[in-house]
């Protein structure tokens, strides 16, 4: 694998949050039944749009199109520049916000066909692009069919949906999705994006006012889903299920688990299906991605948090390319010992996604 720009002789780098986007609406419409074209009219949100640029201005491809829409350019700017071994691709279709479950399921299918066509089956000569099977939780049966359809694809490595939702993801209605994920050995990933939009609850008690408030609050829904997964016994029902919490932050993990463990000691009787300490389920079944990584004044504090949250086992590097809050693999992390660095940048994800 490439050695260019690889920091400090790492074993490798796996970037767990890279966002491809259709070049223009028509590119996606080609895969979407025509009856939805009039509804799916924009990639942007009706509100909570970024006040300046949600996409890096320097990521505009030379041949035109939006940042993240040109596989060659992305390969040049991200993969080659930093020596990335694998880029895990997560489209952001804002799928969970739609009130029509049939449309949402068709939209998921369109994104999957588009991703396979433009990024995985083509423009992927070295197999560095790995994809996510987008599903619409509004229609769990359709989601299961989607997983069944793509599971054997050599470059699809996980199942994906938005963390924006109108229901906590531990609920039984979603269990068929997890059953399918477990059956095919595909992790289930959630990524913030459509909180407070369409039919989705906000991540906070009420609606945020600004992008600043909204984007900061996204972490709350990710945490709520994790608490739900654990308290509903999802990992006890599907012990082989792996969950990736992408771009939901991670510094909250240790105190949340302390609290869950402590609560469980006194409330176990209410949730007898939670048979172990919550933190044990996380260690075995859950991974968090690094971006957006904090920059405390004292870098030592970050290392302490890594230690508390067991980053060595649960954290996976992510850049969030081509978004504005991109975390460069060479300028983001504090000095770490080699083993910890290799686990975060490479080994954890290699194991989690079973990458060659």
């Amino acid at each position, binding site marked *: 694998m490439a050695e260019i720009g690889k920091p400090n002789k790492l074993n490798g780098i796996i970037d767990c949050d890279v966002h491809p986007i259709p070049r223009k609406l028509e590119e996606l419409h080609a895969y979407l039944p025509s009856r939805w074209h009039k509804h799916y009219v924009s990639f942007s949100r009706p509100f909570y749009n970024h006040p300046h640029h949600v996409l890096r201005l320097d990521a505009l491809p030379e041949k035109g199109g939006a940042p993240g829409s040109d596989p060659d350019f992305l390969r040049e700017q991200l993969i080659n520049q930093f020596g990335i071994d694998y880029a895990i691709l997560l489209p952001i279709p804002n799928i969970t916000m739609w009130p029509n479950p049939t449309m949402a399921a068709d939209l998921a299918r369109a994104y999957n066909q588009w991703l396979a066509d433009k990024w995985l089956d083509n423009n992927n000569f070295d197999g560095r692009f790995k994809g996510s099977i987008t599903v619409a939780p509004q229609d769990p049966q359709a989601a299961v069919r989607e997983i069944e359809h793509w599971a054997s694809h050599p470059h699809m490595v996980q199942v994906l949906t938005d963390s924006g939702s109108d229901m906590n993801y531990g609920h039984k209605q979603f269990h068929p999705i997890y059953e399918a994920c477990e059956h095919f050995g595909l992790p289930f990933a959630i990524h913030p994006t459509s909180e407070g939009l369409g039919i989705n609850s906000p991540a906070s008690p009420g609606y945020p006012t600004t992008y600043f408030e909204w984007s900061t609050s996204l972490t709350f829904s990710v945490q709520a889903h994790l608490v739900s997964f654990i308290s509903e016994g999802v990992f006890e029902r599907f012990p082989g299920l792996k969950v990736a919490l992408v771009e939901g932050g991670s510094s909250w993990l240790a105190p949340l688990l302390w609290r869950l463990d402590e609560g469980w*000691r006194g409330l176990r009787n209410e949730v007898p*299906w939670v048979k172990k300490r919550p933190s044990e389920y996380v260690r075995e079944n859950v991974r968090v991605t690094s971006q957006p990584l904090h920059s405390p004044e004292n870098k030592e504090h970050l290392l302490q948090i890594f230690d508390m949250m067991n980053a060595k086992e649960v954290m996976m590097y992510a850049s969030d390319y081509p978004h504005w809050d991109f975390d460069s693999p060479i300028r983001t992390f504090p000095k770490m010992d080699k083993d910890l660095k290799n686990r975060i940048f490479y080994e954890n994800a290699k194991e989690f996604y079973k990458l060659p």
Partner: protein
Amino acid sequence: MAEHAVATVGEIREGKRKIVQIGKISIGVFNIKGEFFAIKNICPHKGAPLCKGSVQGMYVCGDNLDDVRLINEGEILRCPWHGWEFDIKSGKSIIDPNRYYVKNYEVTVDTDQPADAQVETFPTSIREKNVIVHV
């Protein structure tokens, strides 16, 4: 090991308990289905008077996680503060029996000794057996 008569048999009815002081140690004596058990009255978590907690059963799952069953009814003590569960018979916690447990004491039923003077009893025409805690 000394023997301490702490109550008459009839004084602690089935499902009930009596908290007694033996020297400096506060101990809860429980009657579970006619058998007596004694454990220390201090929760290992944060020092609550454990034996003032509620005596119940506990919910567990069968092989199917939706099959929730109540087991060990009358044998589980739930701490009055944070609700940690302890098996009265062993003193061990349910959540982590080897890490969190309270000391338990041997209890026997003896004959025809007057109950310990500190225990207030009412005059009765029937001489009862005594509950003895071995500390």
